């Protein structure tokens, strides 16, 4: 009965959507729909009821209005490169794909900003302004594919956010289709607009506060000078202590990245590099030439003082690129070390790196599964890769337990369950590790203000009974209360 109703409503929506966007841009064929059943977190899948591919703000708004009227949940989708299940649809819901909205609408060099549609990739912004000596600072490793809409939704960061900040520090305004289909501009052209910082809370809300259909982001002039080195250490601890020492010396590098032996081995398997150490530390400085040169000398001295076995300085842009290729390949290369792996994204205070890395090693031993570490060391954002064999059922389970134990360890050290990948469905049930019932209730109120009917990417970010069972102390507003028909007091 309920299933028939759902099918009917989806049928009605499909009809209306075809009228809005044109029949070819509405997908309902099961084979086509399965392309949209997951994002980069491939072990969680759900085939959506419908996929709609609008081409303008007006079309997005009309589709969302239809969903709102019919009570059908919807989820925005950029490139689907998310790693926490954020773009995973519901079976009875709709995917609103933004792949057709990928125009750069305006480049305003005097005011250092670019206006883009949501499906424009992160890298495309930099490519558009690079000829003029500018770039877009947030640089997620996925920047060739991920979209600016997805970046805003996840508050994406990258290797260089240590110095330059995250998406939220660079987005100036956005046109947003709200959960009821209303269209608003959040943020403003000029600084210090009165009113609440609604853009600030939308960024990082994982697609639960509305759909971004246009964004204005700031760009920066390319730094005058860049220096990059990679230092090799005989222990992981020495690498970690070097990070602390650099930060304590008052130096803010553009990036500080670290890889352990297993991650180095993985990278070696897919690139031509010859690195061989217990840990490798990549440090990049950028800025005015004389400043960079003097600080780079200091960094080199700090590496030596912490017993770096070798320090290699990139002598050319090609050598710099090779260092970064090694770092960026480690992720994908993990596939060479084991049939499957899980990525974690915990954050710790950066001074606790040595202890936490020891803790991860101990956990790895206890579970009998290998963990490769490749991470943003400068801001304490770990990316442990838990390696396992998906053909061995116990390993599937144990790898998940191990991954969760690592997350718990990060929280124990005063950190966070996620630094950049988002909570999504993957870590929704881990939110109570970091936040108590009142914290979650307050979050839910914020969400409810944007999406009172719970249709805008439901089941993400906050634990729900459907995902996690009852969450102690977390008081969700019941629809009856919402409608003013009852009260708990």
């Amino acid at each position, binding site marked *: 009965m309920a299933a028939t109703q759902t099918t009917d409503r989806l049928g009605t929506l499909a009809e209306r959507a075809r009228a809005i966007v044109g029949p070819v841009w509405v997908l309902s064929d099961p084979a086509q729909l399965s392309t949209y059943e997951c994002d980069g977190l491939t072990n969680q899948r759900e085939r959506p009821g419908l996929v709609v591919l609008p081409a303008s703000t007006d079309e997005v708004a009309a589709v969302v209005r239809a969903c709102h009227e019919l009570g059908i949940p919807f989820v925005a989708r950029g490139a689907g490169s998310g790693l926490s299940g954020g773009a995973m649809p519901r079976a009875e819901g709709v995917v609103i794909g933004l792949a057709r909205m990928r125009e750069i609408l305006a480049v305003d060099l*005097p005011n250092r900003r670019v206006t883009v549609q949501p499906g424009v990739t992160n890298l495309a912004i930099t490519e558009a302004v690079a000829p003029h000596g500018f770039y877009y600072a947030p640089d997620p490793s996925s920047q060739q594919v991920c979209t600016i809409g997805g970046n805003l939704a*996840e508050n994406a960061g990258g290797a260089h956010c240590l110095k330059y900040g995250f998406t939220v520090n660079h987005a100036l305004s956005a046109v947003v289709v709200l959960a009821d289909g209303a269209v608003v501009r959040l943020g403003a052209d*000029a600084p210090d607009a009165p009113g609440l910082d609604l853009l600030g809370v939308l960024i990082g809300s994982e697609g639960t506060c509305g759909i971004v259909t246009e964004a204005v982001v700031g760009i920066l002039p390319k730094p005058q000078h860049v220096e990059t080195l990679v230092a090799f250490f005989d222990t992981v601890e020495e690498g970690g202590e070097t990070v602390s020492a650099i930060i304590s010396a008052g130096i803010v590098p553009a990036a500080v990245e670290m890889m352990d032996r297993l991650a180095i081995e993985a990278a070696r398997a897919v690139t031509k590099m010859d690195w061989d150490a217990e840990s490798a530390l990549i440090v990049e400085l950028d800025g005015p030439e004389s400043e960079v040169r003097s600080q780079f000398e200091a960094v080199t001295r700090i590496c030596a003082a912490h017993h770096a076995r070798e320090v290699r300085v990139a002598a050319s842009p090609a050598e710099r690129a090779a260092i970064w290729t090694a770092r960026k390949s480690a992720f994908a290369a993990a596939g060479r070390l084991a049939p499957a792996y899980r990525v974690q994204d915990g*954050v710790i205070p950066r001074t606790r790196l040595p202890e936490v890395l020891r803790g991860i090693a101990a956990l790895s031993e206890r579970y009998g599964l290998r963990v490769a570490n490749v991470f943003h060391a400068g801001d304490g954002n770990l990316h442990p890769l838990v390696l396992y064999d998906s053909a061995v059922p116990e390993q599937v389970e144990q790898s998940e337990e191990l991954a969760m134990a690592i997350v718990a360890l990060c929280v124990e050290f005063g950190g966070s369950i996620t630094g950049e990948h988002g909570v999504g469905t993957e870590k929704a049930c881990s939110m109570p590790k970091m936040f108590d019932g009142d914290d979650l209730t307050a979050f839910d109120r914020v969400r409810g203000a944007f999406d009172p009917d719970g249709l805008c990417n439901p089941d993400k970010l906050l634990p729900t009974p459907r995902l996690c069972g009852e969450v102690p102390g977390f008081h969700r507003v019941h629809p009856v209360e919402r409608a003013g028909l009852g009260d708990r007091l």
Partner: protein
Amino acid sequence: MGLVEDLAADLGPARVRPGGPDDAIGGRVPAAVAEPLSPEAVAAVLARAGRDGLAVRVRGGGTKQSWSAPPERLDVVLSTRALHRLIDHAPGDMTCVAEAGMPLAALQAAIADVTTHRQRLMLDPPGGAEATLGGVLATAAAGPRRVRYGTPRDLVIGARYVTGDGLAAKTGGRVVKNVAGYDVAKLLIGSHGSLAVITEVALKLHPLPDAARTVVLRDPDPDRAAAFCDAVRGAPITPALVEAAWPEGLVLVRVESTEEGAAAQVERLRGLGPVEELDEVAADALTADLAARAWAGTGPVLAVGVVPDRLADLLRAARDAGATLVARAPVCAGELALPDDDPDRAARLIDAVRALGGSVQLRRGGEDLRALVRTAPEPAVLRLEAALKDRLDPHGVLAGAAR
């Protein structure tokens, strides 16, 4: 029983007193001033307010009450001044956590142990030594250093707060990178105490530079002064301050870097215009003078912002209105001080800034002027703001106004 007695029963007699003329906000004297010692006590005040239908205004140092609309009713001033502890300073992590009633100046003093670690919270809002962390956040107040380090929204990494109905909650954390949960701190920053009482703040710190050098350019031609600022913005230098001031047509640039870096950058600046370098004493004196200048008189003060390529127009608008302007040139945000209460002059200036696509907020001035400054947001924005107010302060006890 009276309100003071009621609150004394909740908080203890030492934490409550009757309001006096000095506690008036917008001409309204509160019946009681409560100074809770803990978030639980904050919740207790708000719970009573909810039950008894009281209007509560939050006050930190009391330096920026004029930045938002006065309360329509006022029963209780909730002072955060007893919440003034530094909870944690992790020098190696460059973070700290403090209670919201801690004065910014006290925090800077507590963390600036020059012998062991050279670091600072890079916020320099107006308001002097009395301004508290909570008040600075609630008003989104920032000063000249925002050019390099941003505003409170860029430096806050977590917060604890009590919603209008007494829910004590936290957002963010203590680490510099974190995307777990909604960033409620963004909502509280600039909310002027309308959604919740901020009780604790976690902040990102920055290292103090090895060297600082300051130059000034004096050019009473708005176009040339603005062109110089634009050249500074495009040059490979790392200024901590770029303050443009009218009527002198003065631009102060302070570069902060390594010794070698600062020296090289001063050379660069000499190539961009006829600048004069100031020694440290003169530089500090002029910087302090600029920071105080817009507030020096007794006339109205507006906060204005325009897009960066409108700086020359903004300088001209100040000139034409006979106003004093001190602006952070690269972000094009600053304060405009009017010489008198002439409403026509104010209206002309506000229109001029709006014609540039700019924003205007009232920092000091009468309610007539506030009415001139106020704009109506889009209906959908208004609905969202009302929905947030409704859910975070369901009984409407917090008498702060975000606009």
